[in-house]
């Protein structure tokens, strides 16, 4: 036991005292916030930008209605009249203006627009938000208004008929219902990304830890005093403790900031800060899933480290494991979109994906209580499997240097280890 503690302490101190630890502790939250803030800031700026557009109206009727729609009235789109001339010439002239940067783009309205014809938009940037969220609603409204007027309706009726309806979303939870403006999804996404980040970070740390004795040729000295399992367990716990320390620091700082923010008037008004699905329960689940995720992936990374004989070789071999960590990251959008679908539920139970996907579903408030013991049981069973296989690979791999084992050899290590 005292030997195990000695190994844990060494692994822990060897990492906590490094400049690397301090740098990551400070830098990771900065990077994290940056990674989320920059796209938001860009989106905000994008929505403030005024786009100059021109319109070729072959129907001769729609332009007036179009310029009366909100986007033009409020100035998000600014109308620039097209030059006179033959249609083909006009199109070419506008094309040149778009290429030259004087115009963002132009709309082409066919003569048959009232009979069901489509409208075309030609521009340099044809992002989905522009086309789906700006141009389509505006042109649709314009066509409706025109048609309503042609039916001889009163202007007030026309306005009533073509009013856009807003749908307010409420998320149903155990506690009742919460006004939803996307904050749950944002929190879910952030928590999932954080789990992904820390599991990857400390898993990779475990990879280097596992290969350290071989790389520094200390393996035989150490093995004459401790058993391979003691060494591996000590390393796993030591590196895990480093992770907990780092997360502890981050949570403490985040907590202080929130306290400060709660006191500061500026934040008290921000509606977004209210109804956040963040509580002690989420925090506990986060730490629980970090730990199980770390043990699952730490074990996998340690097995890879045991096969390699240098850090360089280890980082080449880690790809299959890293791929396993990345897959849930690619699945997150599906879970965020429909967290109660069978696919989302079952994917979040798969032990290798659970840490990232389950925390996301929990933050969205769609987890059934009985799922929690289920996924933790699955996590623990997986950890035992990984430890059993990894321990065998580690035991044989520790004294092997030079040639990398082939797959059949690896299977033999596991069977006879």
């Amino acid at each position, binding site marked *: 036991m*005292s*030997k195990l503690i*000695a*190994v844990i302490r*060494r692994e822990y101190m*060897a990492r906590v005292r*490094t400049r690397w630890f301090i740098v990551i502790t400070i830098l990771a939250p900065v990077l994290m916030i940056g990674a989320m803030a920059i796209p938001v800031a860009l989106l905000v700026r994008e929505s403030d930008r005024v786009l100059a557009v021109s319109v070729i109206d072959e129907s001769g009727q729609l332009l007036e209605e179009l310029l009366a729609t909100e986007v033009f009235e409020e100035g998000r789109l600014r109308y620039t009249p097209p030059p006179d001339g033959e249609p083909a010439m006009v199109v070419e002239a506008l094309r040149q203006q778009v290429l030259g940067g004087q115009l963002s783009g132009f709309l082409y309205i066919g003569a048959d627009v009232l009979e069901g014809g489509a409208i075309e938009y030609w521009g340099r940037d044809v992002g989905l938000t522009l086309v789906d969220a700006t141009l389509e609603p505006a042109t649709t409204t314009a066509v409706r208004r025109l048609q309503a007027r042609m039916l001889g309706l009163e202007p007030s009726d026309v306005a009533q008929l073509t009013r856009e309806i807003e749908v307010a979303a409420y998320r149903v939870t155990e506690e009742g219902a919460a006004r939803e403006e996307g904050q749950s999804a944002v929190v879910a996404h952030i928590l999932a990304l954080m789990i992904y980040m820390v599991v990857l970070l400390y898993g990779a740390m475990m990879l280097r830890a596992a290969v*350290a004795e071989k790389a*520094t*040729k*200390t*393996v*035989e*000295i*150490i*093995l*004459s*005093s*401790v*058993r391979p399992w003691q060494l591996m367990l000590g390393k796993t716990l030591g590196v895990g403790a480093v992770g907990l320390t780092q997360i502890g620091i981050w949570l403490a700082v985040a907590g202080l900031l929130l306290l400060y923010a709660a006191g500061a008037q500026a934040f008290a008004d921000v509606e977004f800060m209210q109804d956040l699905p963040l509580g002690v329960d989420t925090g506990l689940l986060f730490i629980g899933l970090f730990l199980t995720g770390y043990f699952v992936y730490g074990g996998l990374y340690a097995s890879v480290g045991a096969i390699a004989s240098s850090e360089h070789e280890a980082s080449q071999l880690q790809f299959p494991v890293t791929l396993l960590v990345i897959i849930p990251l690619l699945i997150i959008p599906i879970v965020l979109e429909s967290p109660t679908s069978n696919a989302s539920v079952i994917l979040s139970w798969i032990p290798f994906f659970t840490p990232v996907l389950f925390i996301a579903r929990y933050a969205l408030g769609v987890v059934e209580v009985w799922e929690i013991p289920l996924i933790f049981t699955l996590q623990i069973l997986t950890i035992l499997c990984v430890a059993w296989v990894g321990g065998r690979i580690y035991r044989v791999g520790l*004294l092997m240097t030079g040639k990398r084992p082939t797959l059949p050899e690896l299977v033999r290590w596991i069977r006879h280890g």
Partner: protein
Amino acid sequence: MDGNLAIRLENIHKQYGTKVAVDDFDLTVPRATICGLLGPNGAGKTTTIRVMLDIIGADSGSVELLGQPPTPEARDRIGYLPEERGLYPKMKVLELLEFLGELKGTPRRVGRQRASRWLERLDLADWADKKAQDLSRGMQQKVQFIGTVLHEPELLILDEPFSGLDPLNVDLLKEIVLEEKSRGAAVLLSTHNMDQAERLCERVVMIKDARKVLDGPLTEIRREAWLAGQRQVLLAMEGGAGLLEDRSLVADVEDRGVCFAVSLQEGVEPQQLLEAAMAAGAIVHHFQVSEPSLHEIFVARARE
């Protein structure tokens, strides 16, 4: 079980696939004895040691160290300096030694005091708070050596402990090995440097191709070789070119600078070599017949 024995191996057999690494190997080393484990590279010395320390398992045979099987408790009373050795590069020397002591069950505070004393003795006191990676290779080796003796083991297993050290440090470590012996520790010294073995060891065991070919006290081994007619001739002469290449007389020659150490072919008397030298017109300055050196016994055995 025999409490007076530091090492007792019986019928150790270890095989990697079809390659036999250690074949039916027996070894007994009494306490307070320095025993040399000799043999060419790849003979099976390191495998034997690893089996002994239960770092790898034997296919068959039994191991007894300090009167008990190689349990963790027994292993805590052993110091092992492997041939393949290193230090954690980023750790400070004193902390590293503390850690190595802790792994053998020495409390940290005790380990710290002892380590400081050893560093003082081996001229490394100024380096106690430096990182291991800042030390020269020779210094690192001395630190590894301290790590081996820090917990005052009853059995020391040293695999090529002097390789890569300058002569002053070799002498210093030899002195310490002898002190450890007088403290009561048994020492198993694995090496292929015969000179060192000859100067330090009371007993030698020789392995070749996974098998033991020689085992016993050094004096007895020498005498047996003498009785078997093995002689070493030290010869210094001018002229007599080609004489030492005469395979009918000479089995092996070692050029020692001031003279040649000559092993004779079986059945050849030293007198015959002297006569041949005279007949070849050489002026003989020095001619001495003595017991064969360990090197010669080793070469003769290795050739068999």
